[in-house]
């Protein structure tokens, strides 16, 4: 059945969402959740659900969608299985922006609280712009140049970030916590801030599957078949970077999800990007939700940064999936 993949992925997502809403310092059973959602529950459960659980779950889900969708798009764009959404500097730029913002004592107002995520967002987009301009040759943007410029600029930004962290020892732990990723700063404001960028970016990616399939055959063949290659690549780059920057701004740098989830989707459902991108988006949310649940539960009441869990749990899972894959040519 053609829609089996979507059915399975959506079911998994619904399960992960329910678990994420249920689990915490107070366990809310599905019945209580349903009651609270429909306005029939107790005051406490409604408060827990609407002020704490829902925004956090939504943020995690959206972040997972952004990272995984962009990861799939980057892998297709660069035709490289090692590509992840941070390849051309979004993460290092965001980290630098955040750490610079952390060295300032912002007032405890709405804008003061938004200062760090906003700096991270702006810095991330600036980085992509710089890398893109550095990589451009005439009217085209060769992928190799993009990767090289991205890697070089990332190293530069990361070193600068480390240097700044070393110089302000008081802020190091806070900066490190941010860099390792997690939904510590969540709330409906965060969701409202990133949602437009996410929906624009991911919306574009969902409809770009056909163009991505064409790009897998190389720029020449894609152009000969009718694709405006430079325009397509630019749009894809902007869309992915928008989504990733927005996600990173509020959730920090959560690695592994953007790299691995697309590969698992490929192994299970094939390489057609028209399906791969939507499936990666759905399953990215599921993967990050599960990681976040683990992060909350394992050392409760302390929370491990999600970025640690995604790598520690994600790596063995991916290796298991890889070993079980019978078909060789999945890439």
């Amino acid at each position, binding site marked *: 059945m053609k829609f089996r993949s979507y059915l399975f992925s959506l079911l998994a997502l619904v399960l992960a969402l329910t678990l994420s809403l249920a689990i915490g310092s107070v366990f809310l059973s599905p019945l209580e959740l349903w009651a609270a959602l429909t306005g029939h529950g107790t005051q406490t459960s409604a408060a827990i659900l609407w002020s704490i659980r829902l925004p956090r779950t939504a943020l995690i889900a959206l972040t997972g969608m952004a990272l995984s969708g962009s990861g799939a798009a980057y892998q297709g764009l660069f035709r490289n299985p090692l590509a992840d959404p941070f390849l051309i500097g979004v993460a290092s730029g965001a980290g630098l922006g955040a750490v610079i913002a952390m060295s300032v004592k912002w007032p405890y107002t709405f804008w003061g609280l938004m200062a760090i995520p906003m700096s991270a967002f702006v810095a991330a987009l600036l980085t992509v712009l710089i890398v893109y301009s550095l990589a451009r040759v005439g009217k085209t943007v060769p992928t190799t140049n993009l990767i090289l410029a991205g890697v070089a600029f990332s190293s530069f930004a990361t070193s600068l970030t480390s240097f700044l962290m070393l110089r302000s020892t008081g802020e190091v732990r806070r900066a490190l916590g941010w860099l390792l990723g997690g939904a510590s700063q969540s709330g409906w404001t965060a969701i409202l801030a990133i949602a437009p960028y996410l929906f624009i970016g991911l919306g574009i990616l969902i409809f770009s599957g056909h163009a991505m*399939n064409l790009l897998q*055959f190389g720029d*020449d*063949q894609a152009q000969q*078949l*009718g694709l405006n290659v430079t325009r397509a690549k630019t749009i894809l780059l902007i869309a992915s970077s928008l989504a990733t920057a927005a996600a990173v701004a509020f959730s920090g740098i959560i690695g592994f999800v953007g790299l691995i989830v697309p590969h698992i989707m*490929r192994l299970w459902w094939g*390489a057609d990007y028209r399906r791969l991108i939507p499936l990666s988006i759905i399953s990215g949310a599921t993967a990050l939700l599960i990681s976040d649940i683990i992060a909350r539960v394992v050392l409760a009441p302390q929370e491990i940064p999600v970025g640690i869990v995604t790598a520690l749990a994600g790596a063995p899972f991916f290796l298991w999936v890889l070993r079980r894959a019978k078909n060789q040519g999945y890439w």
Partner: protein
Amino acid sequence: MLKIESLSVNYGSRRVLHDASLDVQSGEVLALIGPNGAGKSTLIRAVSGVIPMQSGHVRTNGDDFNALSPMQRARYIATVPQAVSLPPAYTVWETVLLGRTPYLNFLGQPSQKDEDLARRALDRVSALTLAERRVGELSGGEGQRVLLARALCQSTPILLLDEPTAHLDLQYQVSLLELVRELAHHDGLAVLIALHDLNLAAKYADRIALLVGGEIKASGKPEQVLRPDLIEAAYCLPVRVIKHPFSDIPLVLPESRK
């Protein structure tokens, strides 16, 4: 028909094609021959629009291709590239369907008509049985046939082929070239094909153009172009040209260098 007028192409500051002019009529096969590095691939890539040209025009019935978008151009010209590595995970069927891109919307959903055309194209190159195979599992000859099927799917009046027989054995060389000739004579396509084998060019092309050092040195019927003096100057090798013992075409026999 395809009209190439005074085409000049640079790689950086180096000029690789000088003022090349060629006409390919509908219903004919024009073979582009010449030594390595002469610019055959460059010419084909410039005509298909993937590399920019410094000067010159490429037209069909009045329309200048430079004024067209890649999508519009793809409805006029289909290209079969030189032996390329294809992304191994895609199936033959998916690959050939991509040939319908110029007629699909941006979502790329094919209609029944698109699928019928793809099926017919695969049948024509005798690759219908390969439809569900992954492209990474194909041999060189099978891969080349799939690329030709994809180009046929594009339903274009002009077909460009860049050394399609380079890695094929004798059987596939002949079957591919026979199909190419049929596409021109029977279906009315204008076919420009770069070939390195002079005798295959003599046998399957209606006209030949000799490209040396970026310039068209001669063009015309096989016996007009495959002359000992022209071939020797182009390939820096003494040759003997005789009449083919069983047909009316020239046969080029290389001599050893002394």
